[in-house]
């Protein structure tokens, strides 16, 4: 994204600024309403009943997908990139997790359980979670097909083609990020209602929401890849 305003700023009076700001506000309001309508469409998608019995390694015991709901009817799963052979979790998923962690208590009071799922074995997850100081529930899908079925882990032969984001994108690693939503009815049936990948869950990256509005924007043009500047929150050099 361009940082042209920084290179040659246009400086105006408060009155002129207000005129332009108001014109932009009308577009912002229109965009906010478009977002509301699209959010309603996401919720209006049909559901798919989950018939497979996924079992996860949880912090205290093995838990089924149905058990991950706790006493809630809605379950949010953040697919955190942390492969079985990896030394640590992905840095950009970690930045999203910094945003997720304090939200869990609020969501719990909206009939929502938020659980983070990775394919790394539980002991590895627990160590990394402790290092990062997070409190959310994080379970391992190492022993089941969950990550593969929900399109966030790939077999070697799948990494070459377009298998990510509903078969629209390639992903260069064995693990990819995503956000999935499940619903449990009063009879205990579990339904998959929604999943988004790639830039879909970008709202989780709270830092981008701010960077998009400061003069330099994301300022990633000269970097080898987007988010190349991100470190684990305990690994920035002063």
């Amino acid at each position, binding site marked *: 994204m*361009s940082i*042209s*305003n*920084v290179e040659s*700023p246009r*400086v105006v*009076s408060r009155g*002129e*600024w207000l005129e*332009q700001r108001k014109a*932009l506000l009308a577009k*912002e309001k229109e*965009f906010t309403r478009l*977002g509301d309508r*699209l*959010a*309603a*469409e996401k*919720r209006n*998608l*049909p*559901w*798919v009943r989950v018939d497979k019995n996924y079992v996860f390694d949880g912090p205290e015991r093995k838990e089924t997908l149905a058990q991950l709901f706790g006493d809630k009817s809605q379950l*949010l799963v953040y697919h955190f990139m942390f492969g079985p052979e990896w030394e640590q979790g992905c840095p950009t998923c970690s930045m999203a997790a*910094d*945003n997720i*962690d*304090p*939200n869990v*208590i*609020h*969501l*719990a*009071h909206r009939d*929502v359980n938020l659980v983070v799922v990775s394919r790394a074995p539980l002991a590895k997850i627990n160590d990394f979670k402790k290092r990062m100081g997070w409190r959310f529930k994080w379970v391992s899908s190492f022993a089941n097909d969950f990550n593969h079925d929900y399109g966030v882990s790939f077999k070697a032969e799948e990494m070459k083609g377009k298998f990510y984001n*509903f078969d629209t994108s390639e992903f260069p690693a064995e693990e990819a990020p995503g*956000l999935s939503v499940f619903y449990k*009815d009063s009879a205990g049936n579990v*339904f998959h209602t*929604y*999943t*988004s990948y790639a*830039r*879909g869950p*970008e*709202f989780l990256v*709270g*830092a981008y*929401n*701010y*960077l998009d*509005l*400061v*003069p*330099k*924007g994301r300022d990633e043009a000269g970097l080898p890849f987007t988010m190349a*500047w991100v*470190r684990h*929150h305990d690994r*920035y050099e002063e």
Partner: protein
Amino acid sequence: MTTQTPSIEDLSTHPVVTRDEWVEARKALLKKEKELTRQKDRLFAECRALPWVKVEKNYVFDTATGKRTLTDLFGDKSQLIIVHFMLGPEWEQGCIGCSFGADHYDGIVVHLEHHDVAFVVVSRAPLPKIDAFKKRMGWRFQWVSSQGSDFNYDYHVSFTDDAIAQGKVYYNYEVQPIDIDELAGTSMFYRDAAGDIFHTYSAYARGSELVGGAYGYLDHLPKGRNETGPGHNLGDWVRHHDRYGS
């Protein structure tokens, strides 16, 4: 932040389909999602392309290290984000909605600070009141007091007794019937190499949703925001994170 959240349909009658049918519907929606993401990119580019206004007034804040100017708040960064947090001089505690927002940004400030952004929260309450509430909430971000300065009034998030008595205040770029002395917003500033400071952007009301992302999760869930009253906004359900009870 009132929204037109639809009433929750009876979820027991929600259509259930096969995986293939779902993927078809999901892919159609994905096109619209991508379109909206691109529209967001264009909108934010327009935000950054707004002209700037030079800040001529010398604002002074009470901070943990004494009196500091707006320039000082940049530290060694060229970009400054100010969150206007509703905590008036006479208030017992900070606003619940602003606290909800703070839970979102507390953990990401360290990332912004490593991308040429200083991030400071400002309220009009005296500093000891701010410090006590910040401690209770366990937040780490820098929070300073603008008491005695025109800052909150100039950026239209605090209102004089006169304006409130008349029942008309200027907020979110229009005169509105409002009867509270503090409101919320987010402002952006830039400091150039010569040390001049410019105001580049401010968002208020639901504009802060664009930066805060507070509703991002709920908007994806079957029940949505589910704010059915009495306020039809986050006041219906949000509490301070230490006040939810069991």
